[in-house]
């Protein structure tokens, strides 16, 4: 299941994590939220980020 987990520290700092997304879909899902919350100070990509569907190779046959 696709989930966005927003964790807010005592000082108001926000960490936004995505789960269940593959590839860049996670960034598209959170872009508006990240912008609305304030100023992004850091971003780390998880292994799943690179789990995009690989383009199928055509052999031409």
């Amino acid at each position, binding site marked *: 299941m696709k*989930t*966005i987990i927003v964790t807010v520290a005592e000082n108001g700092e926000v960490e936004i994590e995505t789960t269940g997304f593959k590839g860049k879909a996670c960034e598209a899902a959170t872009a508006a939220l990240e912008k609305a919350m304030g100023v992004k100070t850091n971003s*780390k990509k998880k292994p799943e*980020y690179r789990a995009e569907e690989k383009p199928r190779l055509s052999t031409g046959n």
Partner: protein
Amino acid sequence: MSHIATIKTALKDIAAIKAAGAEFGMVFNENKTVCHYYSNQTVPSTHTFTVNGTKMEVGLVLQPDGTYTVVADDMLLYEGNQPYNRTRFGCATNPLANSMGGFMQRYAVCKTEIEARKKGWMCKRVAQGAKMQVHVTGM
């Protein structure tokens, strides 16, 4: 997980500011340009909150970049054992927390819920010790 982004929260949405204040029992005064603090002194503001149990107010000042800063007497902002905090708020410590951190935290939670619901997503608050989480699903 695909990515983790860290955000420094900025107060810029009046609806979320109102919602956060309401959760602390504060009453929002739209366009109230005079914020009262200790001993009937005042400071210019854009909006204010009336704080339950005291005549002092929390002021919001609109900045040129569209964000709000908070102005208030030290008594309303600092957490600790000072008896006046207990008296003013009727509880053990200042619920707004040190330097309004508690308010910023609640604002971020309310803002997340507002933004998520705009997209038709569902939200669930989950306590994580001193931290607060919002789990957003339905996308």
